[in-house]
């Protein structure tokens, strides 16, 4: 039977006795909160099948979100192990640990898994799926069955891509960017490249469906009073990310179809083979560039790919900025500083990021350097606003250095370093000198590991109590953080140096007389420390599974709506909602005495009123 959510039961309690409400909601961890099964009791009527059939058939955004997160974290571990193989190979010059072919396959699949199958789906398929409907007071995503289809396309796409390791000729080995003509049937024959293309086509559709779903949910299913400018920043960032997905992923998916057609159906979209010399009337000049009609263009691949690829970088960054913006205020015991500034900075980053794709193509010599350099440098401004606001949020706050907070601070440092080197690389002269060296490798690993790993796992530690009603161990969490922090800097700082010394990326072997070995050794040690830190995270999950510590509904005394409901939330999320009068309704509800001190937008409005009031 179709469940119909009736909001007659989604109403606020009639001005509840706050004394009753308080002790229930702000239970400290372990102080008598309830176990997940109890918490579930009233939300667990007949809601479809249980067991394995539940995971196959559920259209509940929470189940799908968890499926997404579990799958993407498993793929993250796969890709991490591949990175360790790569690092072992590079520790010594002329290493024969891997063959060159295996090395090419592994770095391609490491990049593809991390970028296409972990960082993005983890954020917009996993966390956003789970958290966004809760944060805006919605019972589910707007299109629950489309949501389930997204997950199945993502899972089958991932399996398709991984099948590359089991087909003749091995997995794809042309890099995660699949530059033409290297990715053509002549240069990279074999089924590995084909399943790679098909895997990305499937996950591309999955991402587009999730983007549509997120936009629909945020536009149509907000609770009464949850205006756009009261949405939590995480939800704002997910909205902007979803729009970016709708801009970028169709380009990628269609480029993949074209690449496949080039490989198998005899088209010449990205290849110049079979192209005849054109002369006379069919040859013409546009602003000094020779254009031939009837010829494929390898450069077109780069244009299409990076028109996806650069927004993709922000599809991988904005959700994690959102996570950090949720966590910093909670553990600073302050409202977020500069709410509207954060929203507009997010939009500005997204808008600019779509106009900078060719800064990855500076060295092709066929792009408009000043245009792309200027827009790339301009992104530093809204990003700087975000940093300013994050620091402003912590300024004079009562900082609590819990595990999620530590991960956020780790993110700030990592992303700062990655961002500053990004500004350097936006300048064509520097890019010409460092393009395709380990300097660039270190830059984007610091950006992406700063966002997807530091901020991503900050989100895991922060929302885990909401998802499972139990706490993760703080001590193990801190071990995880500190090992990751040390390993991260030890891995990537030497890569900047060795990059400036000229070591190119994507090489399996290097000469021993250039002094590169010591940096690679340091980097490998760092990589293994990171691996150790993630082993500790598994231990932490295991511990919380075996010996659950109940979390209560709101262990962090957090601000946003998702902490108002039970942990884990019942089917259709809410039995009742608090009044929504600011961007942190749960906090207002739990601290009615503090309402006298307005914050955020409420503070701005109050300040305006106060200025008009006559002085008593």
């Amino acid at each position, binding site marked *: 039977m179709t469940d119909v959510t009736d909001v007659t039961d989604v109403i606020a309690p009639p001005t509840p006795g706050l004394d009753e409400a308080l002790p229930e909601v702000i239970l400290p961890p372990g102080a008598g909160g309830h176990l997940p099964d109890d918490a579930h009791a009233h939300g667990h009527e007949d809601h479809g099948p249980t067991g394995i059939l539940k995971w196959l058939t559920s259209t509940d955004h929470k189940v799908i979100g968890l499926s997404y997160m579990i799958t993407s974290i498993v793929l993250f571990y796969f890709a991490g192990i591949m990175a360790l193989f790569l690092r072992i190979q590079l520790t010594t010059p002329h290493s024969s640990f891997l063959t060159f072919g295996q090395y090419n396959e592994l770095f391609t699949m490491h990049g593809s898994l991390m970028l296409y199958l972990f960082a993005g789906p983890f954020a917009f398929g996993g966390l956003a799926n789970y958290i966004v409907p809760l944060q805006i007071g919605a019972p589910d995503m707007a299109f629950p069955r489309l949501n389930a289809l997204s997950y199945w396309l993502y899972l089958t796409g991932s399996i398709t891509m991984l099948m590359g390791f089991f087909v003749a000729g091995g997995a794809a080995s042309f890099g995660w960017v699949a530059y033409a003509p290297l990715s053509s049937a002549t240069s990279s024959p074999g089924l590995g490249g084909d399943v790679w293309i098909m895997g990305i086509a499937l996950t591309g559709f999955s991402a587009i469906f999730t983007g549509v779903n997120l936009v629909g949910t945020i536009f149509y299913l907000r609770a009464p009073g949850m205006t756009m400018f009261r949405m939590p920043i995480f939800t704002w960032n997910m909205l902007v990310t979803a729009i970016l997905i709708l801009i970028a992923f169709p380009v990628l998916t269609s480029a993949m179809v074209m690449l496949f057609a080039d490989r198998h159906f005899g088209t010449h979209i990205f290849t110049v083979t079979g192209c005849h010399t054109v002369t006379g009337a069919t040859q013409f000049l546009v602003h000094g560039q020779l254009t031939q009609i009837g010829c494929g263009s390898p450069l077109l691949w780069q244009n299409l790919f990076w028109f996806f690829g650069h927004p993709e970088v922000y599809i991988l960054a904005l959700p994690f900025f959102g996570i950090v913006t949720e966590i910093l205020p909670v553990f600073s015991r302050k409202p977020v500083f500069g709410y509207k500034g954060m929203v507009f900075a997010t939009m500005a980053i997204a*808008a600019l990021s779509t*106009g900078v794709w060719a800064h990855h193509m500076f060295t092709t010599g066929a792009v*408009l350097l000043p245009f792309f350099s200027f827009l790339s440098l301009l992104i530093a401004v809204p990003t700087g606003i975000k940093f300013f606001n994050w620091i402003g949020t912590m300024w004079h706050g009562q900082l609590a250095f819990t595990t999620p907070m530590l991960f956020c601070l780790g993110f700030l440092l990592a992303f700062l370093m990655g961002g500053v080197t990004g500004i350097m690389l936006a300048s064509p002269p520097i890019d010409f000198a460092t393009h395709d060296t380990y300097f660039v490798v270190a830059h984007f690993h610091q950006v992406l590991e700063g966002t997807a790993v530091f901020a991503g796992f900050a989100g895991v530690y922060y929302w885990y109590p909401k998802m499972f009603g139990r706490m993760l161990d703080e001590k193990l969490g801190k071990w995880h953080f500190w090992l990751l922090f040390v390993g991260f800097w030890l891995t990537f700082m030497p890569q900047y140096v060795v990059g400036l010394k000229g070591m190119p990326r994507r090489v399996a072997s290097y000469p021993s007389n250039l002094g590169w070995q010591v940096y690679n050794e340091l980097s490998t040690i760092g990589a293994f420390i990171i691996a150790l830190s993630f082993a500790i995270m598994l231990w932490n999950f295991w511990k919380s599974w075996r010996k659950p510590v109940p979390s209560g509904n709101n262990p962090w005394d957090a601000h946003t709506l998702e902490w108002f409901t039970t942990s884990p939330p019942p089917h259709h999320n809410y039995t009742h909602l608090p009044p929504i009068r600011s961007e942190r309704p749960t906090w207002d509800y739990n601290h009615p005495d503090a309402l006298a001190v307005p914050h955020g937008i409420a503070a701005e409005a109050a300040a305006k009123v106060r200025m008009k009031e006559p002085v008593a």
Partner: protein
Amino acid sequence: MRVEAILLLFLGVFFGVVGLVYWFWSYEDAGTAMLVGTCLLGFLPGSYYFFWHRRMGYRVEDRNDASIEEGAGEINSFPGSSIWPFVLGMGAFLTVNSLVFGIWLILPGITLIVTALVGVTAESRRGGHV
């Protein structure tokens, strides 16, 4: 839906301007085509939402002073669970891989897709789920 409409219309205007500047500065066609596409992506849904905002006015979720009770009533119909997305996903998986591993895979693939489409439609009409 005013903020939503403005957000998307702004997207359209921004990429329209960037597209124009880019074209007259570079005369590069691939990038310009994509920027124009992005511009339309902003205008199409943006003008739709703007039209509906003009007709509907402010909804409860757009009003600062709305109380939770004002949203009382049926929100939407949410299917509780359904096997068909899974079947459709498996059909897409086989169909796409038929291009790589052998075109015969397209038979079970299309069969699953058609079954799932029929199933999901019937489920919506009947109002039931697995």
